């Protein structure tokens, strides 16, 4: 599969269909996103269970600097890109999506500090394979991209169950409260979950301690009166507000790439929150992100 990806990339670069390609590069036992401009450099291109990062946000940031920017996208990445195109953050005609079918990426936390070897789509630690898959990927809705210019790999069916969310729903109120308060009290509010999220692109964020940027014409009084939703204080109360506010803005938009959970240094199960939200959006509003072509909030406006 990697050979096929490289072949497609080589062709695109050689025929000057794209100026550069955003893809993963192997580096010190992990893989990072990188911009490939040269055909010769393509030998360093990698696609494996370690290709965890979602390129959508990087593409959003840099695609305007290129005539045409290629990007290799897994199912969830392609969904993120599609979401950003729908929200007019990415110009569709200035990117070229090389969709790749994905069998689920590795949970880097499980590989931490171990000697990792990748063979095909399998991860070995000390020559033994084990349960390395990122839990979020077990519930992947579209392992094969549905939004692409060229597709590499075979079609794989997505999974639409919510067993993980139901497990938390089954807890009684106190148990669930204890579960989440224990998690949220660990948060250090580094805002990595927000910063890494492809659909969290606002330059002014309501959870920042000085939100709603001031302008050069704002008077002192205006500045003093700007609402501050959240301080910088890190405690359970404020952490809950931070996470709930952050979450609400993802209704019908989160593409379940799992970047938030992966980024979190304190290991909060953030994708579980996003999946609960997905379930609500699906059950209460009947909005299925995978099938829809109109953003959730626009759809709500059209209906009501």
């Amino acid at each position, binding site marked *: 599969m990697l050979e096929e990806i490289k072949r497609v990339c080589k062709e695109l670069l050689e025929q000057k269909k794209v100026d550069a390609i955003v893809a993963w590069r192997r580096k010190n036992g*992990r893989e990072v996103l990188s911009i490939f401009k040269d055909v010769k450099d393509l030998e360093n291109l990698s696609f494996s269970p370690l290709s965890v990062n979602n390129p959508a946000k990087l593409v959003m940031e840099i695609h305007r600097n290129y005539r045409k920017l290629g990007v290799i996208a897994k199912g969830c990445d392609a969904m993120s890109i599609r979401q950003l195109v729908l929200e007019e953050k990415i110009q569709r005609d200035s990117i070229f999506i090389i969709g790749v079918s994905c069998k689920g990426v590795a949970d880097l936390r499980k590989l931490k500090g171990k000697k990792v070897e990748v063979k095909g789509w399998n991860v070995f630690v000390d020559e033994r394979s084990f349960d390395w898959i990122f839990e979020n990927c077990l519930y992947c809705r579209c392992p094969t991209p549905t939004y692409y210019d060229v597709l590499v790999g075979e079609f794989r069916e997505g999974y639409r169950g919510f067993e993980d969310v139901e497990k938390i729903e089954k807890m009684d109120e106190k148990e669930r409260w204890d579960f989440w308060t224990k998690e949220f009290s660990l948060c250090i*509010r580094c805002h990595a979950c927000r910063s890494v999220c492809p659909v969290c692109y606002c330059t002014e964020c309501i959870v920042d301690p000085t939100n709603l940027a001031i302008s050069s014409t704002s008077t002192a009084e205006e500045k003093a009166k700007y609402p501050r939703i959240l301080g910088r204080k890190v405690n359970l109360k404020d952490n809950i507000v931070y996470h709930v506010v952050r979450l609400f803005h993802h209704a019908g938009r989160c593409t379940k790439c799992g970047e938030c959970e992966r980024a979190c*240094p304190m290991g909060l199960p953030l994708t579980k929150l996003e999946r609960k939200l997905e379930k609500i959006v699906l059950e209460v509003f009947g909005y299925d992100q995978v099938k829809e072509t109109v953003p959730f909030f626009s759809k709500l406006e059209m209906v009501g």
Partner: protein
Amino acid sequence: MKVYNDYFFRDLAAKLREKGYKVYVPVKVKDYYLFKEGDEIDLSGYVNTMKPVKEIIFPQNEVLIKYKDWIEEVPLDKSKKAVLAVRPCDAKALDLLDKVFLEEFVDPYYKIRRDNTLIVSLACKEPCNYGFCINFEFYGGDSIAYEIDTGYAVDALTDKGREVLSLLNMLDADKSVIEKVKEQKRRFEKSFKEKLNLNEIVNAMIKNFDSSYWKDVSTNCISCGICTYLCPTCFCFDILDEENVRYRSWDSCQFPLYTLESSSHNPRAEKWKRLRNRFYDKFVYMYKRKGEIFCVGCGRCIERCPVGIDICEVLRGVKF
């Protein structure tokens, strides 16, 4: 140097508790460790804590004053604390923080915590995954314990540390133990694959401030606060008022709002400028101001960076 042929940290923790200390030890939470008040000390599998020891001396939130019409209270934390099994690099980082908080202007909140906190460090036997401490002075703490076959060999580095050793019944270390510890240190220092040429790097950085290199290395940066919040030497904070309380909280130079001025001008609005600032602050500005590089090589920022920015790799890549 003294020798203790038993569970040193367990017995020391018990003695310190008797003396009225709050004792913090590495406690396993999920798949990592945090310093918490705990009774059980299980160091099997312990490499380092996720958050460095600075959070005990310089907590993430700290109330500076409580006020109504006038200042009602200036809460100072006078409790006696002890932190056990701190890695030497993190302990050394506190010495660096002292230069910020105790030289010139003395920060009373920091000082009282620092004076009342005892740091007992635990030397590493082998390098951790991302550690590059070999490039720095990295033995710190009030006293430092080395694991040996029979138990622990403990060395006091400060007067506070010497007092600790008198709490337990310890034997004087004989020549063979001292030699063993030296050998352990030697082996540890040798097991690092490479050493950075920091002198040259710092000089190269001074020359390359305007280089486009900083744009290249920051392409993937997402401007989160992980690298600075988990850094044992980062000390930036913000002061805010809330419900009759003035408090300070950690802040990060990687956040876009960090340098936003009231006039709406932002000198570091672009992320590459912020990332560059992180490197220059640690390796150039603080070196010029305090004579020390503000990095101890713990490797947390490398390990936890969500997009894989590696401080060593960036340093190595600065053009000479």
